[in-house]
């Protein structure tokens, strides 16, 4: 056996490590599969005839709807801030990412408040359109669509912006020299070139939409995750919840395969030459006004108004002296847990991402797919699987924060993997091979050559995982040690009792803590560092 085939083979240490991680991550899926298939046929039949068609339709249409609107908004924003120079551009460039700091369930609540019958927005609408005019109910497809779009478009924006900054300027200049308009340049040259990033962004958004539990629960929109949560909180057995979860995973899997196929077809490496920063086109008065209005609208809806309301409520709670104590420990718990989970995720994710990018054998891709299942497996169900695993087999660890960290790993590693994988893919393997041919060992070539090149992407991965872990709810609710509350748990406990003034302070704190981390995302173009 040659050295090379040994490295790629099934029994290499790296592969075995990846296998162990993938199995751990996929464990909840095995558990769910087991309980779904041991359910009685009658349960399957009942779900099939009463629930599944509706849930499938709602989930798929929501994912498509949100995907389409985030794509339009995200690409438009990215195009404007990279290609046009207008007043305030530098501020908008990072301000647009801030909505990532708002948990979906907080945004959902704020919109139920804004859109309620007789609420604020309806009164304004009636003032314009007459007393009989009605706006759409937030408890509907429209509500879920709006909230999810406002919550996820920055993912597309970030990836599109980074990609647009990286597009080799010569292509766009060549197009324009040949007489293409700016629109033609965008649609025929730039967009096709940044397609891999857009696909990666859409992938993130779609997985987020189908796996999010907080927003759809508050908006009572019947998607798979909401139905699963309802089944889990109102029944004494988990057969129905397991079946629905398994179906959700199967659909997500089909989607994953499609995405991977698409990505294989459109893989680009930067060809030689240096990348020049495009100098944006200066704008006149009217375009500046229009662009500013657009930015303001998106920013206000996704961040400005919600944060204003939260500050208002926090102030009200403060004034009546109803601010709870113990915030310091909630902050510490949240930050410590999320930070630890994100750091461990980077360590365990690296071999998976590396193997799948460099040696895409069937096994290595399978490990990666195994890891991805955790992202779509609904949080409450995955948490329950872990609870069972630990109480049955490792009772001495049960009730510790370790279980919770594992739950975060399972749920959020995929979000990081996505970023890590595309970072590794952007590094031309020739560089590694050069290092190897100069006598470097595999590990040291990764550490000394590849890692410095992908560091930016890895930081992005860490941030994404940290952010999502800070906001995580269902697993934290089920697995937190007794007496160990995080900010997200506090928001939920108060918000589910309708005490929104009391839910506002922890919500505001989550946003404040995650803001600097979110800003790191925009600080430089990490993908190219």
């Amino acid at each position: 056996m040659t050295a090379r085939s040994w490295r790629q083979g099934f029994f290499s240490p790296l592969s075995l490590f990846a296998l162990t991680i993938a199995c751990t991550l996929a464990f909840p899926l095995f558990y769910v599969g087991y309980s779904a298939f041991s359910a009685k046929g009658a349960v399957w039949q009942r779900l099939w005839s009463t629930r599944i068609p509706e849930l499938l339709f709602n989930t798929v249409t929501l994912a498509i709807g949100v995907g389409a609107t985030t794509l339009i908004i995200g690409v438009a924003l990215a195009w404007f801030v990279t290609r046009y120079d207008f007043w305030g551009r530098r501020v908008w460039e990072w301000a647009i990412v801030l909505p990532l700091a708002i948990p979906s369930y907080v945004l959902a609540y704020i919109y139920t408040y804004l859109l309620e019958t007789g609420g604020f927005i309806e009164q304004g609408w009636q003032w314009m359109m007459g007393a009989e005019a009605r706006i759409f109910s937030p408890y509907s497809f429209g509500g879920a669509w709006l909230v999810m779009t406002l919550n996820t478009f920055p993912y597309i924006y970030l990836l599109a912006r980074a990609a647009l900054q990286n597009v080799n300027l010569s292509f766009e200049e060549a197009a324009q020299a040949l007489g293409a308009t700016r629109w033609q340049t965008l649609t025929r040259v730039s967009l096709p070139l940044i397609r891999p990033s857009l696909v990666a962004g859409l992938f993130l958004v779609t997985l987020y939409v189908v796996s999010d539990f907080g927003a759809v629960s508050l908006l009572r929109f019947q998607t798979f995750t909401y139905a699963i949560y309802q089944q889990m909180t109102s029944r004494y057995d988990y057969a129905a919840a397991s079946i629905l979860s398994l179906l959700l995973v199967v659909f997500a899997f089909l989607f994953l395969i499609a995405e991977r196929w698409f990505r294989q077809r459109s893989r680009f490496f930067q060809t030689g030459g240096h990348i020049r920063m495009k100098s944006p086109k200066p704008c006149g008065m009217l375009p500046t006004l229009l662009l500013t209005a657009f930015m303001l609208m998106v920013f206000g809806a996704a961040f400005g108004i919600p944060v204003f309301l939260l500050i208002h409520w926090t102030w009200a709670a403060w004034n009546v002296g109803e601010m709870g104590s113990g915030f310091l420990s909630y902050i510490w718990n949240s930050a410590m847990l999320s930070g630890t989970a994100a750091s461990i995720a980077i360590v365990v994710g690296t071999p998976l991402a590396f193997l799948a990018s460099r040696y895409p054998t069937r096994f290595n891709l399978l490990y990666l797919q195994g890891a991805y299942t955790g992202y779509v497996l609904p949080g409450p169900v995955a948490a329950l699987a872990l609870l069972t695993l630990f109480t049955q087999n490792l009772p001495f660890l049960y009730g510790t924060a370790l279980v919770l960290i594992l739950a975060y790993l399972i749920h959020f590693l995929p979000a990081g993997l996505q970023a890590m994988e595309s970072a590794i893919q952007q590094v031309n393997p020739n560089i590694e091979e050069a290092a190897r041919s100069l006598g470097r060992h595999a590990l040291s070539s990764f550490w000394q050559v590849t890692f410095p090149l992908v560091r930016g992407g890895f930081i992005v991965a860490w941030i994404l995982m940290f952010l999502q872990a800070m906001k995580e709810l269902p697993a934290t609710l089920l697995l937190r040690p007794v007496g160990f509350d995080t900010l997200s748990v506090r928001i939920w406990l108060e918000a589910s009792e309708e005490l929104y003034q009391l839910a506002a302070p922890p919500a505001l704190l989550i946003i404040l803590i995650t803001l600097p981390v979110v800003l790191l995302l925009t600080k430089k173009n990490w993908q190219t560092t």
Partner: protein
Amino acid sequence: MLILTLAPSSLLAAEPLVVYSGRAERLIKPVLDVFTKETNIPVQLLTGSSTQLVNRLEAEGPHTPADVYLTNDAGTLERAHELRLLKPLQIEGIEQMVPQAFRAADNSWIGLSGRVWIIVYNTSMINPEQITSILDLANPKWKGKLAIPNAGSEYLQAGVSVISAVQGETITEAFLKGIRDNAENSVYGQSSQIVDAVAKGKVGLGLVNHYYIYRYLADHPKAPIAPLLTDQKKGEMGLIMNATGIGVLTHTKRLKEAKSLVQFLISRTGQQMFSERNKEYPIRPTVKADPALPPRKSFRVAQVPLARLAELREPTMLLIERSGLR
């Protein structure tokens, strides 16, 4: 610090009594604080949904950190009892203090307070004489005028169980389909939202737990809302009452402390505090309810033993799903 948080919680503090509570922290914590002050027994609280907590207790089995399970639905308590998660308690005089219908046969759980699932109506929109039974809500003339809780609500499930135990499945299913059609989009996750919708005149009628009406009136004394005491005529089923209750877990290592918590909550002071905070009916008939509520003796409740709510849960869920409630 990391090591501290990673260590099992049992090593952390001086062995507090761990309470799993299906009841909101805001309502139960002040009462537990008084208990701690009086007995010097520290308490640690973990709140969640009743059903999820009982499922969690089942999964945790002997490894549960919990000593006491306290919840707002007698059905889940009975479920815990069936799973042999609860210890039968010997408390002197309990038979005299708590009526039979509000505790388990072997006293492994004990009711603490009563809550009535009731119609709230807008006094300037609805003539209360048009409704004498809860079943009248299914009448098509209330189309667009009714607000109901969503299918995940434990109150709704318990209420439907009682109706179907008394009236049978056919009548119950027709009732559910009727209120589904009448409610249209006014399906809410919280009773407080329903009361708010009725008070603001978005709808005229709503189905809620009684104390939400009084909680709302305490904040908005002039709100045009009132409870409708239905099904009181001879031969009618009476109002639907559920109970909050408490049980001590089989695997507790702190039986003495757990028992003293039960005794505290069932004592006169405990009862008063516990029910007053939420405007519920004290389970002990000799303890007076809040004067704002209709006196407990002024209405009749359905005679369905609360312990039956556990066995009725699954058929009720099927019924709810079949009727298309969401």
